[in-house]
């Protein structure tokens, strides 16, 4: 599944469904709201474009890293410390592809998918700046 949604997802179930014929390795990345003086996080997406970008990234990752299955679930809305923000599940025949494919997906998401995070902090709210330097952080469309 490729989704942008408010609801959390059952990672155990996604792992089972990722086990396509030929699977020898499943890698899961789970990005979590970190408690750097943050109470909650508010996430916002340009949903139609973000979903399209996630679908593209999943297809690219499959081709580039010979993945058998890809799930990407990016949550939006209000999330508390410890809650899942982004879940990526990939399967492959062997572990090098699974790790590389998983990493590829998260890095591409950070670079170019129109989603934003606002930290609701003890000392005031703050929009999280993109990780990517000036001139990047732009959807590739």
């Amino acid at each position, binding site marked *: 599944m490729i989704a942008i949604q408010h609801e959390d997802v059952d990672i155990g179930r996604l792992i089972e469904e990722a086990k396509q014929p030929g699977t020898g390795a499943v890698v899961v990345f789970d*990005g979590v709201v970190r408690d750097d003086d943050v109470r909650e996080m508010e*996430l*916002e*997406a*340009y949903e*139609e*474009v*973000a979903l*399209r970008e996630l679908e593209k990234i999943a297809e690219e990752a499959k081709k580039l890293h010979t993945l058998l299955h890809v799930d990407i679930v*990016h949550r939006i809305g209000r999330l508390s410390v410890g809650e899942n*923000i*982004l879940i990526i599940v990939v399967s492959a025949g062997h572990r090098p592809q699974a790790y590389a494919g998983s990493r590829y997906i*998260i890095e591409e*998401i*950070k*670079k*170019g*998918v*129109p*989603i*934003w*995070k*606002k930290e609701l902090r003890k000392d005031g709210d703050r*929009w*999280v*700046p*993109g*990780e*990517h330097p*000036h*001139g*990047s*952080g*732009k*959807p*590739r*469309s």
Partner: protein
Amino acid sequence: MTVKIRFFARFRELLGTDILVEKKSGTMLATLVKDIALEKKEGYDAIFDANGNFREFVIVMRNGKRLEPAETATVMVADGDEIAVFPPVAGG
């Protein structure tokens, strides 16, 4: 003609979003966004520099396709267009 403007993140907080604008056809995209942004100085300053150009980090999309900064001054909006204006992304 009617055009929809969507601001996101900080820009949305400053200027609102899903703004429907009635314009004469022939309006340039940058002009359209500027007119809306002018309604709130802080919003305008967040998006445009002192020369009235989009700040370098600002991303502009028309119907889900990104435009180069130079294009925004020369592209005319059309009826039904959706224009999105947002700061660098920070998902993941």
